């Protein structure tokens, strides 16, 4: 037996959001009398961190600490419309809606503060710690709590805001496919290292080195969650998963997790991630959406690495030991390429 090592490369870009019906999302923001804010959405947190990233976006925009914001979603009686959580659209679309709503609420808060401080609201800034003060004169300040209280108990203002984000539908030309599919793209490149057993066709992924360009990592830990978990899923798509192991035949479709294969904790490969940030001009603070593209480079990188290791091209996913073994048989054994 010989274990053959190989490396494979892939690079991708990824469109953020959809070109469907304008792909809109909305947000409402309002403050309690004590200056604690609620963001109301109907967006879904599937684990990607919708509640958390919109909370940070709202806090940044309002100019208050993140602890002073709570995101409430998704109750159709209170949350305004959102297309949904898919197509890597959440951070970008909902984030922009939240910015707009928070800007409107912030403007009221600053108006209220200005009235209390008897200054021009245009001269006011927030310090992100719960205070509003005159630019260049920190002593002339009021807390965000006092400003919101004043707005609601003395001045008769609702400290609230409404936001929507919409990219009008771009028609698609039937003859040329001309369209504006989306407004921004995320990027990734990856080298995957594999070991291939030339007697059994078994493949193990032994290392991943990636670079992901995400616009801006609004929360670096949430981004890391997506990239790490997503690359695991990409590896899984490459060499484990299928509902139809003998596609297009429908026989032997798995009905449980013994038959539906995914890499276990003993199959993990170290994944060295580099994050690049080229802000999207229309993204919330430049953010794009890392949630889907993270998986994509792994699939081709794995098959390219297998070719590098033993010279067998697997063009049908998933890679199975059987496909590799048949490929090895067909070419009379391993033919390492070692191009990388």
């Amino acid at each position: 037996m010989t274990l053959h090592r190989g490396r494979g490369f892939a690079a991708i870009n990824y469109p953020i959001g959809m070109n469907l019906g304008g792909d809109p999302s909305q947000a409402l923001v309002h403050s309690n009398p004590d200056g604690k804010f609620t963001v109301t959405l109907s967006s879904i947190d599937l684990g990607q961190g919708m509640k958390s990233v919109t909370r940070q976006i709202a806090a940044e925009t309002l100019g208050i600490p993140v602890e002073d914001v709570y995101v409430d979603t998704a109750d159709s009686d209170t949350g305004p419309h959102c297309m949904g959580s898919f197509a890597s659209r959440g951070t970008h679309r909902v984030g922009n809606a939240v910015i707009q709503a928070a800007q409107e609420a912030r403007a009221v808060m600053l108006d209220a503060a200005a009235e209390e401080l008897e200054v021009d609201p245009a001269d006011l800034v927030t310090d992100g710690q719960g205070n509003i003060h005159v630019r260049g004169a920190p002593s002339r300040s009021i807390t965000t709590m006092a400003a919101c209280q004043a707005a609601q108990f003395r001045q008769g203002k609702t400290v609230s805001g409404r936001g929507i984000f919409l990219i009008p539908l771009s028609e698609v030309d039937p003859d040329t496919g001309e369209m504006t599919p989306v407004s921004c793209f995320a990027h990734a490149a990856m080298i995957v290292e594999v070991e291939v057993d030339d007697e059994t066709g078994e493949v193990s992924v032994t290392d991943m080195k990636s670079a992901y360009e995400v616009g801006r990592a609004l929360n670096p830990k949430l981004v890391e969650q997506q990239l790490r978990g997503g690359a695991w899923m990409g590896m899984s798509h490459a060499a484990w998963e299928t509902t139809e192991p003998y596609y297009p035949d429908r026989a032997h479709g798995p009905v449980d997790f013994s038959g539906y294969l995914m890499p276990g904790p003993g199959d993990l490969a170290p994944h060295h991630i580099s994050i690049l940030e080229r802000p999207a001009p229309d993204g919330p603070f430049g953010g794009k959406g890392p949630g889907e593209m993270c998986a994509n480079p792994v699939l081709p990188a794995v098959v390219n690495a297998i070719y590098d290791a033993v010279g067998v091209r697997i063009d049908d996913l998933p890679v199975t030991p059987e496909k590799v073994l048949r490929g090895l048989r067909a070419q009379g054994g391993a033919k390492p390429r070692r191009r990388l």
Partner: protein
Amino acid sequence: MTPAVETYATLAEAARAMASGDGVYLAGGTLLMRAVNAGEVPRRIIRTTDRTLREIAPVGDAVRIGAGVTMVELLQNRELAFLHAAARQVGGPQIRAMGTVGGNLFAPHPYGDLAVALLALGARVVMAGQAGARPLADLLRDRARTGLVAAIECPRPRDARSFGFLKVSRVHPRGASVVSIGAHLPREGGRIRGARIAFGAMGAAPLQASAAERALEGQALDAAAIARAGAVAAQGIDPPSDSLASSWYRREVSGVHLRRLLESMERG
């Protein structure tokens, strides 16, 4: 549609209750409760709290293992160290805490890794209410019509190095078997006497690789014998296809894995 659950204090009572044929015995639950959850509900679920089912005791050259002993209990017993490699490969920690030795004999393809080891070791099955024991191989040939298993009597390999176990799966550390192999190769004067090779996931139930056994019988465990055994490993075996592997693949690699197991045993 809703089962009657009957709990008996003794194995004998449970065995009598089973005699009518419309009951299913509940051991660790990992097989039966899954079926119940999926709507395959027997009229009667029969169980016993009989402690003797949990006993492990030496019987001559063999160890008698109560059918109700779980994988975890087996793994905690030093007398049964020769079975640990196989028991450790059954399911994840939860399944090992629940699944029993008796239940493993009835696990459908591709499960039943412990049974593979037991088959290779020539274990015998003690049925409730019956004197004596019958070969496990008999029970595995027809698992549908059988009584209630009280215990397994498993011969202890005289030399720990004469027994080896290997499980091949596509998910680690817990995955169902592409193939599992138990090999018992007792040696007398350097020659293999009474070779037993068992395969799991190569048929509806664990089965013996007779051609490989014949190839090894009377031979020294050397490279030539190992190669011959590997080459004939799948002879006469028609393994099933499933989502883990096709029949073709199982046939192709069972010999490779057998060879690797034997080589590791040769190295000791």
